[in-house]
Structures are given as C-alpha cells and as structure tokens.
C-alpha cells in the first residue's frame, strides 16, 4: 500500500467510524432537537468519509470508495482507537466528541495547507463542519460538567475513562514522517500544546478535573483495534458482504 493511500485512509476511517457511532443515536437523543443535531454531525462525518474514500479509491486505482468502506477487515482500518469506543451515555459520547473534535479542528486547519491539492481541498471543506461539531460538544460538556452533581460525576468518569486514547492523536510514525517531509501531511506532535490548552480551559469552565496521566492505548492507526470495531463493521458491512454481486 502506498504511503499516501494509508495516510488518506487513516483520515477517512476516523470520520466513517465516528459517523457510524454518532448515527447510532438516531431516535435515541435526550431531546428531539439533540437527535437532529447528532444526525447532522453524523451526516457531516459520512460526507467527509466519502470524500476522503473517493480520493483513496483514486489513489488505489481499483477499489471503489464503497469497496474500501464495506469490504475491508478491521485489521485494515486505521482509525484512532478513540472513535470506535461505544457511545455509552450521552455525556460519554460528548466527551469522546470533545476530545476528537478539538484535535480534528487543529488537524484540518493544518491539513488545509497541504501540498496535496485533494487533501487540502477536502480538509478545507471539512474544517467548517468540524468547527460546528467542536462548538456543539464543547457547549454540552460545559453544561453537563457545570450542571447537576449527577451530570458532573457522569462526564468526569467518562473523561477519566477516555483520556487514555488521546496520545494516539500526536504519534508520528514512518507514514507521517514521509508525508510531513513531502509537505503533504501534518506534524501532529506540534498540535499537542494547543490541543491541551483548549481541553484544559474547557474542562476548567466545565468544573471538571484533568485526568492524571495514565497508560495510553494506541495502535488503531496501524490496524490494532478492540473487538468493538469488528462488531461495528460486522453490522455496517453485512449487506455488501452477504450479497457481493448486488448493486444497491
């Protein structure tokens, strides 16, 4: 697999898997308005996934975007471990979103300056959407953190639980290094400072406590996933796998 293909798939897979998770909220939101907001976010994420997968398909030269989405095994998915984590309660979903959105806001901002025109155009388009997602999750975390005792406790627990997935955002491996050297990719290790500042100020305002550093979980970007991803994919890929010759 080419380095550019893997780099592109990593981006696409984050949107696709998180989109799938957000779509699970459909008809289950705490209010009707919130149901609609979460569907909106899921739709944005699927749109982003589609864009990056179309580009990946062009790089690949054979597989279509749908092939890439529906006919790859878990070990060939390169999303962050964080985005495959199950929704849990609404506050848990919003913590997951806040951690991810904050990072992706910074990431897309940098990627929109990529020398690769396709990636920069896709990032530029996605940036507008992720700004809204970020505001949405940040607002909720402030309200839930500074809401009732119960809501504070719930989101604090989620924050503690999900913190271990955040180091993966800033890892630089061979693929990243090559892309950085070609001025295509983003040096995410440089985003950690700003990410931490935004997260710290948000959790301060939300009257939450920053979790202490714990053992981090990574590996998603190399296809090492929990069995949660296999279950997610089993459902998502069920029809195209069962009827390989069908067009839908």
């Amino acid at each position: 697999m080419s380095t550019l293909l893997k780099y592109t798939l990593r981006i696409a897979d984050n949107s696709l898997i998180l989109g799938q998770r957000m779509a699970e909220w459909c008809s289950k939101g705490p209010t009707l308005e919130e149901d609609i907001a979460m569907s909106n976010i899921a739709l944005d994420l699927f749109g982003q996934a589609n864009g990056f997968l179309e580009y990946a398909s062009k790089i690949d030269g054979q597989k279509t975007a749908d092939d890439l989405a529906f006919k790859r095994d878990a070990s060939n998915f390169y999303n962050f471990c964080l985005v495959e984590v199950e929704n849990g309660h609404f506050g848990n979903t919003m913590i997951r979103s806040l951690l991810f959105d904050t990072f992706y806001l910074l990431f897309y901002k940098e990627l929109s300056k990529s020398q690769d025109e396709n990636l920069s155009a896709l990032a530029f388009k996605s940036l507008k959407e992720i700004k809204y997602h970020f505001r949405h999750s940040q607002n909720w975390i402030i309200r839930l953190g500074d809401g009732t005792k119960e809501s504070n406790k719930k989101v604090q627990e989620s924050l503690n639980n999900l913190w271990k997935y955040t180091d993966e955002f800033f890892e630089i491996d061979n693929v990243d290094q090559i892309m950085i050297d070609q001025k295509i990719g983003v040096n995410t290790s440089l985003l950690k400072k700003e990410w931490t500042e935004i997260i710290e100020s948000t959790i301060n305002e939300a009257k939450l406590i920053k979790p202490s550093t714990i053992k981090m979980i990574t590996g998603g970007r190399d296809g090492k996933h929990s069995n949660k991803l296999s279950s997610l994919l089993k459902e998502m890929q069920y029809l195209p796998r069962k009827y390989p010759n069908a067009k839908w």
Partner: protein
Amino acid sequence: MSEKLFQEKIDSEKKIEPKDWMPEKYRQHLIRQISQHAHSEIIGMQPEGQWINRAPSLRAKMILLAKVQDEAGHGLYLYSACETLGISRKELINQLHEERAKYSSIFNYPTLNWADMGAIGWLVDGAAIVNQVSLQRTSYGPYSRGMIKICKEESFHQRQGYEIMAEMANGTKEQKAMAQDALNRFWWPSIMMFGPHDADSPRTGNAMKWKIKRQTNDELRQSFIDKTVPQAQVIGLTIPDPDLKWNEQRGHYDFGEIDWKEFWNVVNGNGPCNKERLDHHKRAHNEGRWVREAAKVYAEKNKLN
C-alpha cells in the same frame, strides 16, 4: 365570536389562526389529529433508523440518515403547530407514553430487509403525501403551513424509496425477491393508513364541516391506489391483491376488501411492534432525563450570574 361566524369564516376558505376564537371541539379535534401526526413522524424514525448502520453503500447511508432526520424535523414542526393550540410538548409526550394518544399503525410493522427502506419511502411516504397534500388546504393556519413545508420533503422521500425499489427489482434474484417481499408486507398496511371506510368513520362529519379534512378516507385511499399501481407495474413488481383491476367505468382501480380485523388489532396495540416502538421511545426519554435536567440547571445558574 359565535359558532355561526366561525363557520362562515371556514366556509369562505379563511384560515383559523391561533388567537382566533374556535369551538372547543374544533380545538380538541386538531390537537388529537396534529399530535397523532407528530407522534407518527417521531415513532416512524425507528423502523428506518434501525437500518442506517446497515445501509449497503455510503450514498444509501447518507440518504437514509437524512430522511430519518427530516422526519424528526417534521415531528418538531408539528409539535410546535400543536402547541399553538395551548398544549405543551411535554404533555403531548405524556399522552403518547400513557397511550392516550396514538400514532400511525404502519410503524408497528417490522423492517426485515433492505427493500423495506424502499417500500416505506415509496408506499408509506407516498400514502402520507396523498393525505398531506390534501391537508395543505386544512382550515387551521399553522397546520396548513406545516403541511406545505413538509410535503416538499415527503416527495423526495417517496422518490428515493421508489428508486431503492426499482434498483432492487432490477437487481439480482435475491434482491428482486426482497423487493417483492417488502411490497407484499407493506401494501395492505399502507392502504390501511387512510383509516376506516367513510361509513365507519364517526368523526369525519365534523372534520369535513370544519374543513380540517378536505377529502374522505376512501377518496384519499383511492387516489393513492390509482397513483401507485402503475408505478409497481413499471418496475415489474406484483401488488398482492388478486382483486385489483382497472375499472373503465369508474375511471379507478377496484381493489379487494381490507382486513379490518387486522387494522383494529394493530390500532388497539396488538401489532407486531407496538410495544417495542413505545418502549424504545420511553427508554430514550428516560435515559435523557439527567441531560435535560443538567441543561436546565446550568441555564438557571447562568441567568443569575
């Protein structure tokens, strides 16, 4: 204003607005009808929502999710229209949970294969459009305007559903079988959506007089059938009614007798999914309580500051 003046206003095709005087029975009729419509949009999210994560292509996934989201928007819009009659959304949801309010029985049927997404869009949204186009001329202003807005989206849904059906009817043997199976299961429940025969529909009298309803159940049902039969023929699917036949004299399709026992059975709570649908709605509502409470407390705290 008296009932006589009210009726004169209705007869001269003027819209009734929230602040206008209206007979209590008119108001009650509207609350029942609009809330039932709103609940239907919301409960109707479930049978299709269950397939978003199993949609077979990225495009199909986005279309379906956007569709279900539209239905949520319709529900929201209709709850607001209902609130103009002096009842809160909270109370409307209570009525739903306590089974004092109903929603369309069509959503008490399960969705068993992907072609059901086609059948629902084509038939269920199709039937809804026939009803709602007629309701665009309803006498209550907010309801009428709601219908005008909603109808545009419903016709998208109908076309997208028909597209899924057409694709599958012309697809592999298995896909065609799924499409026919979906049509077999959804046909009769769809034509039951228009409700009992006019002769057995006690409230139609007032509703027609007040121009809440503009066409009777049987008229609407006939127009849906006339519109839909040729669409089935075009894609080579068979409507599961041996008595279905074009009647040259009437200029309409004749069709077989509806199984009203089945209809009342589902209306009265014994359909395949009644409990599941309501339980799902209650569960989501209960699980979201702490979130709504937190948002409320936060808003109050920040008002004081």
